[in-house]
């Protein structure tokens, strides 16, 4: 497939290659109006106007939004689609045989034989969709989910792939999805951060702060990291400053700043700084309240597994409750991590060597709390306006690695799902081949997946943009198709 139709087009050391701009004459003007009538002109970029004194003020979407808030459950390390949502009975038939024509070497090394799913699958709910016993609590919710089984990534390396999932670029330095969303929409709650990233109790994910970074967007759209165990940094004054001294200092600062402002009226940046100290003071009051689980009922704690004997599971469950409390209070974008850094699969879903042994543990931590979170959001009526996304950076190979009992990275066909506001229930979109090597039907990219998330929030992914180094940058670069098949 290396040969395109003709090489002549490639031989561009030719002055004509520089000739490109439209200097529209009369014909061009006529054409523009013709295209405009037909609605065919390329859409103009939309760059939100940010009030510097209220950068997180709620801003209107581009079109009617189905969802107001987003909760992203991010499973780091690449969850095997073959052990969870993508049922491949053929793998049982061909268990322990070589994949004919398969690759000899994949990401981590030589490929071994095909390997059957490591867990039993059974039909779930009214749809009867086959889902694995690995995640029994989540499996009970199968009917609610809209699955995409045909996702593809641009890279097979964890860090760049997490970048790609979270920022639409495999490189470091691009704005995260949450930053884009809060840049576009602001937040409903001015006393809390607009974008919160809740870190897994086991540690940070592979691409770390790239997943919640602002990239080249202003810093106010960066995710604030916290967890049920670790609150926002610098919420209280350091050292042994007394409350009285603290308040007096704050008052004096305000007085000095206001005097300075009176000499520089109409300077938005100065006024914005004064406002930011007021906001900070409100956050000092509201953050401890949202982070406290004291008012949660014993039944709720029990349902999530918040007092589980396994400390990691209990900590993740508490993070799940925190996620709900943030959504309840109108935080626009909550990112909930399950799984940490690369660790030979010990602390995240990167099951290269002993997949089953490690997945037993990872699933135990994820399953009950995450399922309880979805049910809780439903029971409180929050699903009406909340989009819940479950995602992972890529999938895994249908064969084991040579000499191991685990699967290597596979960016060519993996599963993520979404549920909640605006999402059709019980849909399975796209397919991988019979063995799960790669996506073959309705092949979709993570650009498409992200475009769909923005669409549900009322945002046009082709127009939401930010001018950086002379480019209209978008979350979806020049790609992306809204997966309308998933929408109500």
């Amino acid at each position, binding site marked *: 497939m290396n040969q395109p139709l003709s090489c002549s087009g490639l031989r561009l050391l030719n002055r004509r290659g520089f*000739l*490109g701009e439209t200097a529209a004459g009369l*014909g061009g003007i006529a054409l523009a109006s013709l295209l405009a009538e037909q609605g065919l002109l390329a859409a103009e970029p939309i760059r939100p106007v940010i009030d510097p004194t209220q950068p997180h003020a709620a801003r209107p979407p581009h079109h009617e939004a189905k969802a107001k808030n987003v909760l992203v459950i991010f499973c780091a390390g690449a969850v095997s689609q073959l052990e969870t949502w993508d049922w491949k009975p053929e793998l049982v038939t061909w268990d322990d045989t070589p994949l004919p024509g398969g690759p000899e070497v994949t*990401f981590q090394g030589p490929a071994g034989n095909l390997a059957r799913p490591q867990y039993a699958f059974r039909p779930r709910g009214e749809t009867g969709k086959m889902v694995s016993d690995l995640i029994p609590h989540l499996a009970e919710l199968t009917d609610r989910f809209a699955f995409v089984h045909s996702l593809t990534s641009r890279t097979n390396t964890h860090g760049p792939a997490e970048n790609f999932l979270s920022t639409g670029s495999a490189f470091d330095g691009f704005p995260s999805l949450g930053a884009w969303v809060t840049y576009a929409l602001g937040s409903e709650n001015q006393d809390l951060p607009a974008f919160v990233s809740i870190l897994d109790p086991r540690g940070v994910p592979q691409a770390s702060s790239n997943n919640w970074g602002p990239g080249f967007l202003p810093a106010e759209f960066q995710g604030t990291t916290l967890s049920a165990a670790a609150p926002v940094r610098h919420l209280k004054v350091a050292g042994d400053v007394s409350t*009285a001294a603290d308040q007096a200092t704050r008052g004096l*600062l305000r007085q*000095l700043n206001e005097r300075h402002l009176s000499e*520089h009226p109409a300077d938005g940046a100065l006024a914005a700084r*004064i406002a930011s100290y007021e906001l900070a003071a409100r956050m000092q009051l509201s953050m401890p309240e949202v982070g406290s689980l004291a008012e949660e009922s014993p039944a709720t704690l029990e349902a999530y597994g918040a007092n589980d004997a396994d400390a990691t599971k209990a900590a993740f469950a508490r993070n799940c409750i925190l996620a709900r409390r943030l959504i309840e209070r109108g935080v626009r974008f909550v990112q909930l991590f399950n799984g940490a850094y690369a660790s030979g699969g010990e602390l995240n879903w990167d099951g290269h060597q002993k997949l089953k042994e490690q997945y037993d543990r990872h699933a135990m931590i994820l399953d009950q709390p995450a399922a309880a979170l979805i049910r809780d959001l439903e029971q409180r009526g929050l699903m009406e306006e909340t989009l819940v996304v479950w995602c992972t950076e890529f999938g895994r190979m249908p064969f084991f690695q040579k000499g191991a009992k685990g699967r290597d990275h596979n960016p060519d066909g993996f599963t993520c799902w979404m549920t909640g506001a605006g999402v059709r229930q019980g849909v399975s979109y796209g397919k991988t081949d019979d063995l799960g090597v790669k996506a073959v039907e309705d092949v979709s990219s993570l650009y498409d997946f992200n475009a769909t998330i923005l669409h549900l929030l009322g945002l046009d992914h082709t127009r939401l943009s930010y001018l950086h180094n002379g480019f209209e940058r978008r979350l979806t670069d020049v790609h992306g198709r809204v997966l309308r098949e998933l929408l109500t």
Partner: protein
Amino acid sequence: MPQQVVLPLVLIAVVLGSMAKQTAAADAPDFVAEIQPLLVAHCYECHAGEAAESGLRLDIKSEAFRGGDGHGPAVVAGDAQASPLVQFTRSDDPQLQMPPPEAVSARLTAEQQALLAAWVDAGAVWPEGVDTAVLADRRDHWAFRPVVRPQLPDVDQPEWVRNGLDAFIKSRLEAVGLSPSPEADRRTWLRRVTLDLTGLPPTPEESVAFLTDQTADAYERVVERLLASPRYGERYAQHWLDIVRYADTHGYEVNTERVNAWPYRDWVIDALNRDLPYDHFVRQQLVGDAFGEDAATGFLVTAAVLLPGQIGADEASKRQARQEALADIIINVSDSFLGLSVGCARCHDHKFDPVAQRDYYTMQAFLSGVRYEDRPYHAPAAEAARARIAELKQQQAAAEAELAAGPTDERRGQLEHDVAELKKQLTAETVKTRVFAGSFQKPDEVFLLSRGDPEQPGDLVWPQSLAAFDDQLQPVGLGPGAGDQTRRLALANWITHPSHPLTARVMVNRLWQWHFGIGLVESASDFGRNGTLPSHPLLLDWLAAEFVANGWSVKDMHRQIVLSATYRQAGGPGQPEAMAIDADSRLLWRFPSRRLEAEAIRDSMLAVSGRLNLVMGGRGFDLFRSRGGLSGFPPIEQFGPEGRRRMIYAHKIRMEKESVFGAFDCPDAGQTLDRRRRSTTPIQALNLFNSPFTIDEAEAFAARVTQEVAGAGADDEHVDEQISQQVERAFLLAVARAPDDVEREACCAVVREHGLASLCRALLNTNEFLFLP
């Protein structure tokens, strides 16, 4: 096995058969009446205008016949079956068909498809003069034309003009009916120029000296003092490091330490301090190994890079990774020096600028010998370390020989201790012999890659300067035999040619931006056709011409700018008519005040507290207790003297922001950054008001003030007087002025009740302290 982006168009080769050619029919469809309307309605949504998809335009005859990226002519006259236009519009495969399913435009009906095919088979007659658009020459763009030194314009108030640049500013203001603001008072100018050039506030002594200096050249002597200070290089190097995204780690997921990257950072500081002419500054960063400036080549490899363990074990993954690494070098070279995004032409011809895909690969061929590696360092410091290593090894051998000979127990203890000590020293010295800078090998063969895909190599190419500039600059081309250094030197000479239309313009614009917050060209790293137009085009050319004429001296540019009447204006409240026309002060009817950057804030706090450690150079101090892994980067909250050095000497972790000041839009060193954002967030307020760093420095600041206001002691009569003096001293240190009566009273009350540190904490948080006035 990285995912290849296989675009549907490629698959056409499969679809195409060797079907018999039909002959032209006598009643061929008419292009204007029948075919063009089809193209307008069904294709122009994406394939018309400047930003046409896949580089294919169907609104211009020559472009349609030339075809888009990588697929040859869209129309092969007389052969519908071989014409992509016909094939794609006919296909039922959703991966292939045009318009694609997600397009707004409808598909062609069977009749329309037949009509189109008939037109092609009949010879694809497309009359001249009916195109809906006209091609313009992409080289016809202001920034690609030669710099022509303009005449100074005449202005109404020539007495306002202090030097050439003022004439251009004034003339532009006059054109829109605005006047400059009054001159800022001396105190304001001193604080502005000191923070601007050194990133530190003036000391009370410097303020007094200047405010009482009545000589004619008082301003000039301040500027000379500041430019001669090593603090200047430490300040301006940070601006450059933002552009090249310097960091002390490799980035991406493992983000391990890039142990010996810092010699490049130190080289930039030193180069600025000794006013290395800018053309040399460029040349040494590209090929410093040829000029005895080895560390300068760190420039080539400042980007994040995947390490061998992070790249797939298969060959395709390795080829892909190599292409990514080379792409980052090209971005550094073209964005930094040329303000031209050559990197965009990696997969297709540039959408806006006269950069063909071939240009990308011919530029890559200049640089394809460069690798990212820790390698032997060729510098006097490294040679000294090598000599020391030889010495230490001799001592070690002697000690070991004596040990082998069976010494007394007492002697053995001493010798063992010595050997251990020598080994430690050897390790320390060995580090000094290595550097992370460009590592140079035989250049890779470079192929034009279809769609940028390393698995689809096309023509073999050799180094060739950007063809768009061939009319103005002697083109530079090299054959396959040219070695790596020859290639880089040729590229460096081409970029620094005094007639290059971009190099000087781009740099003087950056300097302007660093002084005024925004450049004459707002898109400082994009002077291409998608960049912004200059606010003062003649001024930009005048500055560029001055720059080259004065031997590319950066310090000379600083002098001209900071001594100008434009720079000396007050930044105060706006005239309503000026605010209405130009609220952003782009026309510079006042000085645009703005918040300081993270580094300047931290450094200034330390300067004011009296604890700034001015040790220069070397590996740098840590901001985090440990790196990466499960714990991430736990920040150091309280620093010793080493951690109170200037922030440019912090060991910079890519993608990991410092826990207090990172929130002040500190770049993450992921992508090249042309200009700092200046956001305002409650997180910044929490950090600056509550962090241990602030509390520590506020206390040190208070202790300093207490010590410096010696005075009548603690008896009650003198306490109020002493507090008043302390308040005054604290103000002078922080904001270079005494408090007014209202401030003094409020501050004294707080100090009396809660101590001096409370006042100091407030001062370190004031807008006045944090803003360039």
